């Protein structure tokens, strides 16, 4: 519980500074080109890493379980242009059904 509040406080404070960076602290300055190109990659990199841990992460092992078919079907739906909420629902339903049967 205390851990949770530390995370909430620190992430909240740092995010506040990030969002205020332009309007309050730095003005219209531009990031150096190298920094900008690294920053541009942060979102895809972190999100894909989260997909891997959230799909295959076990107790210090790679766990292939009911999540895999769920995420796979959702990936096809995303590729076909399904909205995010629909993709989430598809992943949840397929995974829940596989768990029910298994």
């Amino acid at each position, binding site marked *: 519980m205390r851990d949770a509040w530390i995370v909430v406080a620190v992430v909240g404070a740092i995010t*506040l500074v990030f*969002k205020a960076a332009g*309007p309050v602290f730095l003005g219209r300055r531009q990031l150096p080109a190298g920094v900008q*190109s690294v920053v541009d990659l942060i979102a*895809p990199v972190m999100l894909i890493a989260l997909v891997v841990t959230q799909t295959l992460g076990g107790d210090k*092992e790679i766990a292939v379980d009911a999540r895999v078919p769920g995420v796979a079907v959702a990936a096809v739906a995303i590729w076909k242009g399904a909205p995010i909420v629909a993709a*989430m629902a598809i*992943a949840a339903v397929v995974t829940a*059904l596989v768990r029910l049967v298994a």
Partner: protein
Amino acid sequence: MRRSNVRSVKADASTTPRLRDGVRAAVPLAPGPFLFGLSFGILAESAGLGAAAAVVMSATTFAGAAQFAAVSVLDSGGTVAAAIMAAVFLNARYVAISLTVASIFPGGRIRRLAESQLIVDESWALSGRSGRFEWPILAGAGLLLYVLWVGSTTLGTVVGDVLGDPNALGLDAAFAALFLALAVPYLRERKAVQAAVLAAAITFVLIPIAPAGVPIVAAATACLLGLKR
């Protein structure tokens, strides 16, 4: 919304959008943030974050992906440091985003500090639709999204309490799908695809050997591909 509520828009009303135009612009997006907030509340509750911490996080961080990332790391047994780093890395993009809209915020430092917190991916994207960034659109859209986000998180913590084990419902897979769907728009450029593949490989290799949370933080090094020409 009544006219008196948009007092802060001083500019010429015939050409400049008003705050309410920003609110209106965000209405079509409303179901998304509402359902994300709801699921964040449910996940946070099941991850043992506690209802109060979940709602405070939505009110202060107000950035969906980072909040999900932090809770996902904590939920999988990761350390406080790993959870913080995952969220902070994800939110670093707001430095770049806020620089693009630095000049549109009116008023003194305190007001700019407060209103800059309404910057989220969606309000920022909407505010630039006309070809130049417009403060009333950003602030109006941000306000609506903020109310939705905090409100639906609160609702989610209540629902989550009733639901029991969310993994039986496949919620763990739903969050994987969420992260994937959020990543896809970034994967149009070749360098982003290469970095994402490298990040996936780093994560995959480290899951069996590193403590929970560490694989995600280590995967962030894949961003350094950005330095390559």
